[in-house]
């Protein structure tokens, strides 16, 4: 579509869930949006930023989600509606601020945080359900079930936020964020009002001073009153609905992406006369009167939701208090094992569960075909994920692997979050031996690096990307220098937040809007905290390996090697020309008689290399190779040849 701020109310356009969230926030008249890139939410902020000038919005990539939330909160304090955007992990980072801002309340303008979770871990290394955060942070939560609803819900969330003076979470999942669907556009807002932070500080009246979160006894009781107010608003929300008979044999209670899985399953099985679907859009606090009226209409309840039994537990708690009215109810869901508390759900899985609960059977396809298809796919190989052709991380981990081997003291690497997370597997030669949260590689390395008194003598490496460095590694590096921890931090500076879609960060000299920005110099920053710093181009394998060996041998505190080489996909976006054309000299490639055991395709594993099984030799796939030239340096027979492109 031409512009997310297209002024055509009523027009239908194809929008991804994330774009619909952006449009909803724009229609709600936000003035500030702040985020840290995290899939499945990475597209929301750039979509808003594309209309930043037109709609007078300040959009920023903050260094992490806590900062983003604080930026958004300040706007609300000054009377400007704001949006924070983050994935489930990011919500954890922001949580420490949110628990306090919920205590004081926000400003006069609404503040919404869009959080998208990742059932199935498609873009994450965990499958956290962020919804329980709302219970312990004490703020209202809504869950959208489609792109259109996401847009409407975000708009309404601002009204709720202002009515109860709390941050409101709108929660999606990967499938919602990344499914494109029909969205009918709404009106665009009027011009924004002036930002002003009210002078209301009064040290003798904390409620009046409100933006300082203490003393907490003054705020905690009103916070729970606000939640009750939200519950009352939710009782009549249009985002809660029911389709089905008045007294269904089975009541499905569902929310978010599972809504369409439930309705489609009921339709596919043709059981609409037996089963009702109650779709809950406002999942915390629970609208108890609304829910209660349906609990008394049935004897069997089936909860269809992804990951944690969040709604399931809330409703069962409510049901326990309603026992005299409902009589005995039978519950199906996580506890009964009909829906797993892990992985993504689907219509097929709901159909399977319904067959068991209702005692019916359903055949997906012709059995002969089923058998034939099952046989045919036996030849389909697994397709492992990989780093791209020309990826500088492949060069870095090749050098790490060799340096650790040459050093000979069982050194190892602590991994982190980014494309280079793949180093725990074959694409990075299994070099990342720990991998947890953003910044945890350097943090864990700090701990290993201070075990010398227990005769620990293994060299410790940690890796981080350039964007992750700014997000959470800087405190760990300072810690390493200060506490004299013995490790080497490798900053894989590829000039982008590559994993989530090449977003700019403080080291790239660019803002989310495309405007130029001051460059925060990673090298100078590391030197300033007192770390010794070396800079390598990982494509110079010899120099990189030698530098690694030297730095690993040091006994000093935390030191840094910056592995600087631009992400190949960023190079492609910038239309940078190919450096080399590659070919395999079939005279020199000895194939399986070489003794290298297909080092190039089996171990090095660049997708631009392939094994020509007919010729029994290596070959270059010209549709994939980007001419980085690295493989010429790893072939022991010198059979891979690079020629400079003139």
């Amino acid at each position: 579509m031409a512009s997310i701020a297209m002024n055509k109310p009523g027009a239908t356009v194809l929008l991804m869930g994330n774009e619909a969230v952006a449009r909803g926030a724009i229609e709600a008249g936000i003035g500030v949006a702040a985020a840290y890139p995290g899939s499945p939410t990475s597209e929301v902020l750039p979509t808003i930023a594309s209309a930043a000038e037109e709609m007078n919005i300040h959009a920023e990539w903050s260094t992490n989600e806590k900062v983003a939330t604080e930026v958004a909160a300040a706007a609300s304090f000054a009377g400007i509606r704001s949006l924070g955007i983050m994935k489930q992990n990011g919500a954890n980072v922001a949580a420490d601020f949110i628990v306090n801002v919920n205590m004081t309340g926000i400003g006069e303008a609404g503040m919404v945080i869009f959080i998208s979770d990742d059932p199935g871990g498609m873009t994450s290394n965990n499958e956290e359900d962020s919804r329980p955060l709302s219970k312990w942070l004490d703020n209202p939560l809504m869950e959208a079930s489609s792109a259109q609803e996401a847009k409407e819900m975000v708009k309404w969330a601002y009204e709720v936020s202002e009515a109860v003076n709390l941050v409101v979470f709108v929660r999606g999942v990967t499938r919602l964020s990344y499914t494109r669907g029909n969205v009918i556009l709404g009106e665009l807002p009027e011009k924004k009002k002036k930002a002003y932070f009210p002078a209301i500080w009064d040290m003798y009246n904390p409620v009046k001073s409100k933006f300082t979160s203490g003393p907490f006894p003054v705020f905690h009781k009103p916070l729970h009153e606000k939640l009750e107010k939200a519950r009352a608003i939710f009782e009549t929300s249009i985002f809660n609905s029911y389709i089905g008979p008045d007294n269904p044999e089975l009541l499905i209670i569902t929310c978010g992406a599972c809504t369409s899985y439930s309705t489609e399953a009921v339709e596919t099985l043709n059981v609409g006369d037996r089963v009702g679907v109650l779709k809950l859009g406002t999942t915390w606090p629970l609208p108890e009167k609304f829910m209660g009226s349906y609990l008394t209409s049935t004897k069997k309840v089936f909860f269809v939701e992804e990951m944690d039994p969040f709604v399931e537990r809330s409703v069962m708690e409510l049901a326990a208090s309603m026992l005299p009215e409902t009589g005995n109810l039978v519950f199906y869901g996580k506890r009964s094992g009909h829906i797993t508390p892990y992985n993504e759900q689907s219509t097929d899985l709901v159909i399977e569960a319904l067959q068991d609960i209702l005692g019916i059977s359903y055949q997906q396809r012709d059995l002969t075909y089923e058998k034939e298809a099952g046989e045919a796919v036996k030849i389909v190989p697994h397709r492992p994920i990989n780093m791209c052709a020309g990826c500088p991380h492949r060069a870095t981990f090749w050098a790490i692997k060799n340096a650790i081997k040459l050093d000979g003291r069982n050194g190892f690497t602590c991994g982190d979050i980014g494309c280079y997370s793949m180093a725990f597997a074959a694409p990075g030669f299994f070099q990342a031996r720990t991998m947890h949260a953003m910044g945890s590689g350097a943090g864990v390395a700090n701990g290993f690096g201070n075990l010398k008194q227990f005769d620990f003598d293994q060299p410790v490496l940690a890796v981080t990307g350039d964007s992750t460095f700014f997000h959470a590694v800087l405190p760990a590096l300072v810690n390493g220098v200060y506490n004299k921890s013995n490790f080497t931090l490798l900053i894989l500076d590829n000039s982008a937040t590559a994993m989530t879609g090449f977003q700019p960060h403080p080291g790239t000299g660019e803002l989310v809007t495309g405007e130029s920005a001051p460059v925060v110099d990673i090298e100078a920053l590391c030197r300033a905290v007192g770390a010794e710093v070396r800079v390598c181009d990982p494509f110079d394998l010899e120099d990189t390996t030698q530098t690694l060996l030297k730095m690993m041998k040091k006994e000093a505190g935390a030191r840094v090697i910056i592995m600087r080489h631009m992400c190949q996909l960023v190079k492609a976006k910038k239309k940078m020309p190919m450096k080399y054309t590659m070919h395999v000299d079939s005279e020199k490639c000895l194939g399986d008689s070489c003794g290298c055991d297909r080092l190039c395709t089996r171990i090095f594993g660049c997708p631009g290399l392939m094994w020509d099984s007919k010729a029994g030799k290596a070959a270059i796939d010209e549709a994939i190779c980007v001419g980085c030239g690295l493989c010429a340096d790893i072939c022991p027979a010198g059979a891979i040849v690079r020629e400079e492109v003139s």
Partner: protein
Amino acid sequence: MAIKTLSKEPFNLIVAGVGGQGNVLLSAFVGMALINEGFRVSVADTFGVSQRGGSVTSHIKISKEAPYSSVTLKGKADVILGMEPVETLRALGEFGNKQVISIVNPRPVYPSGGVAYPDLDEVKQAIVRLCAQTKFVNATEEALSMGNPIYTNVILLGALMGAQVLPIDKETMLPILEERFPGALFDINLKAFNKGMELIATA
């Protein structure tokens, strides 16, 4: 002439390929054209690390009115646009049925890490066996002869429009390509699109 009504509700198109082949853009183009023709559509792509050379599938569910979930039910594909042979077979294994129609780019994308690729003829035969109708379109080869494998997806888009299996056609698709590819980029993409239409006519 494209068909104007859906033969079933919902109508399921699957685009199967390998991360980096351009399935996301192709699927978005199809979705936009369908919306412009008044259909209700849902386009669900594979995201995340699979984009880095993994197996990717886009599910395009088309209906007149009703909202459906984004992923195709098992065994319910109506058309499979296979950007890669093994990925086409993988999709057939899960979503195929006796009536399914496939349009397939027969150029393999080899898996990395020393994973062996099965015999291509065997893969193609299995595809033909599992489909009511199969058409092979040498999209990658044509794109390479045009100077860049990046045109593969637009060639396949042309083939899909030429196959007349969806309620959209060249007329509905061209304005969308024109908006996405301004100026000289449009000319070369139009050439790729027309090539796809030509190839499917003789496939």
